């Protein structure tokens, strides 16, 4: 075999990059970063077989490859479609994609309770971010929302099925991290639910990770529930010598003052767990003396957690100029220079009563 691997050229939203064969469109877009990366509610890099379900990452493929430049007839799930050499993809530059994504967000929200004010996930919820970016302020859904009973899955985890968006991530975690999966999806359609069939505790050293992978507040940490809002907490990276052979022992501690309120696995810039941690690290070790502190966690500028003005706020890369092909975005005009509001030809103090548009000379707008 040849030493150097052939790289595939792929153009996403007018930005061309080279990626290795076998890379999905989503991962290629994440390499570019910023808004070009489609949102993903069900795909999880570390979980094999995940993705394709939520349909928020749909993109338009306007050219399949150099060899076969035909466009794909439908929007495709970018998390499960691999790039081809010469592929041209449109994400935020495609109206079809934006329209479909708005539709998906609406679908995800019609049965989701708007209980963010009392939900522990608020502030780090993927659905909250998604609806903030793509949702509408009102709803067109006028029916009763689907509800379920709350359900304790053992001493550590609570399942609040009403909030679930059926991303299947927790099912994959149980399949791939534990010896035996004890929960799954029951029933079908809009009445399907994550459940243990007969109310049963989930008991496995790594089952706590289902809390971290859950994109919404359906699976919450019972040792942390209602203790604090995440944006009042200060994330700090720490590690310990964990005795569990599979546990990396690298975590994020969430402080308020001197107290550790919760322990989670570390997450990357896409909100995905970097390395899985065991239940002991997550639920049992909540004293600073248990841990070796490394330093503050880097927090995305857009995250509500950054409102605490901690050090290490990450400013994401600005891609809008590249997406627009080097042009300045049309909407970003200097309103002051256009309106000349700062240099009025009329002395405002000489007008009787409040200034009105008719008091100013009509200006001709030129493009």
């Amino acid at each position, binding site marked *: 075999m040849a030493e150097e691997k052939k790289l595939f050229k792929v153009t996403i939203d007018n930005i061309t990059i080279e990626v290795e064969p076998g890379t999905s469109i989503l991962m290629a877009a994440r390499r570019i970063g910023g808004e070009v990366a489609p949102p993903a509610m069900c795909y999880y890099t570390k979980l094999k077989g995940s993705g394709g379900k939520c349909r928020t990452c749909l993109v338009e493929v306007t050219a399949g490859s150099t060899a076969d430049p035909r466009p794909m007839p439908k929007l495709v799930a970018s998390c499960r479609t691999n790039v081809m050499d010469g592929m041209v993809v449109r994400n935020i530059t495609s109206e079809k994609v934006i329209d479909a994504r708005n539709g998906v967000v609406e*679908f995800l929200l019609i049965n989701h309770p708007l209980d963010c004010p009392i939900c522990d996930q608020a502030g780090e919820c993927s659905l909250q971010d998604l609806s903030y970016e793509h949702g509408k302020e009102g709803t067109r859904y006028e029916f009763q929302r689907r509800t379920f009973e709350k359900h304790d899955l053992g001493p550590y985890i609570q399942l609040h099925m009403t909030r679930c968006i059926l991303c299947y991530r927790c099912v994959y975690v149980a399949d791939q991290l534990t010896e035996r999966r004890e929960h799954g999806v029951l029933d079908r359609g809009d009445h399907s639910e994550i459940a243990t069939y007969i109310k049963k505790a989930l008991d496995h050293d790594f089952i706590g990770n289902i809390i971290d992978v859950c994109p919404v507040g359906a699976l919450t940490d019972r040792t942390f529930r209602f203790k604090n809002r995440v944006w009042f907490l200060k994330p700090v990276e720490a590690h310990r010598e964990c005795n569990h052979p599979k546990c990396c022992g690298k975590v994020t501690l969430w402080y308020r003052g001197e107290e550790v309120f919760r322990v989670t696995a570390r997450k990357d810039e896409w909100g995905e767990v970097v390395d899985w941690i065991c239940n002991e690290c997550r639920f049992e070790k909540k004293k600073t003396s248990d841990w070796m502190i490394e330093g503050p966690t880097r927090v995305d500028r857009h995250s509500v957690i950054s409102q605490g003005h901690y050090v290490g706020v990450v400013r994401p890369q600005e891609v809008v100029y590249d997406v627009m092909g080097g042009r300045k975005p049309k909407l970003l005009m200097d309103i002051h220079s256009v309106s000349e509001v700062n240099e009025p030809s009329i002395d405002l103090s000489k007008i009787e009563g409040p200034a009105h548009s008719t008091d100013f000379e009509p200006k001709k707008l030129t493009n």
Partner: protein
Amino acid sequence: MGRQLLLEKIKVEGIRGYETYRREGGYRSVEKALKTMTPDQVTDEVKKSGLRGRGGAGFPTGMKWSFLAKPEGVPRYLVCNADESEPGTFKDRYLMEFLPHLLIEGLIVSSYALGCKRTYIYIRGEYAWIPEILETAIAEAKAAGWLGQNILGTGFELEIYVQVGAGAYICGEETALLESLEGKRGNPRIKPPFPAIKGLWDCPTVVNNVETLAAVVPILNFGGEEYAKIGIGKSTGTKLLSACGNINKPGVYEIDMTISVEEFIFSDEYCGGIANGKRLKACIPGGSSVPILPANLLLKTAKGETRLMNYESLSDGGFAKGSMMGSGGFIVLDEDQCVVRHTLTLARFYRHESCGQCSPCREGTGWMEKILRNIENGKGKSSDIDLLWDIQRKIEGNTICPLGDAAAWPVAAAIRHFRDEFEWHVNNPVECLTRNYGLAHYADPLTPVTA
């Protein structure tokens, strides 16, 4: 009288049993294929015949077979999709119940062409009495040496297994069927990879409809070219249609795809006209998923030509002015039927059968059903009609499997062609509970299209 290839012998007494079936010329195609032809020749014959998948999509069968990956040392599977769950479609049931050996004969020839040693019939759970008929037929065929090791001394071996589903429409989708066959939850897989590359137990697999596999028998008996002479254009051979609704003679009919829709509905040979002397209002020509057509667009295409019962003619005009052949579930509605109620029934079905894996289908089908229920019960608003249109638009094409499309199309077509009936429901909330909108203008002659 149309030519009958599949149902020709169905009235022969005892044809369900092996002895009679063999005496009437059964299993000739297996002899012909195994003794005188190579597997590729059989595939070529099917390609020449122009046979198109009878399960709904109408994809050329020979082409599908030639896509099957054939890596060395990896078993290949043929799976017969007998999960016939589309409302209005019951042709496969008829075939399996009364001519089980025809299916088995088709399966043997097809398995030979594809090089499969294990073949599965996945049958829907509601057909509770049919697995026994199939099992009996398989046992008879095995006893007569058509199955098992070294069939007809050619070294070809084949076993056929019957697997009963648990009652889910979604398991008729080929990848959900394979998941279910593997013993998992019947969720459709994300494609690619397609089953031809990675199907049952990650091995190359072909999934075909019952009628498609049965049609392989006459193709082998008469030859592909001879078979292709029946029918018009790319609609070759004969097609089974299950006619139901407000007609005088509901049942399964075999047509040669040259007759007109009008003849199929009104001739005594087939449906025998609308029951109780009523008038035709609308019809779904190909099973519940395909768009409904009002009488005027059903009998004549938008161009003013007579609409024929074949793949091309039924889809003439696209979805705006046409429909689809689909799986052949021919549902006829007379002037007394309410399209809103009818659409609600279908929406309820799709909501119940959505697997819930992807968001647009899971949430959208439930939403559509609730809105339709409101309109039907006189609680609708005029904005609801546009909302329904928007919901179906956002489901269609954005889902993992075609169930989303199948749920969206009937709603879209009903609003497209019967919007005034929906509006009447909204504007007459009390009257619509006691009276139907009736035939209105749906059977009026079309205004001629001017270029």
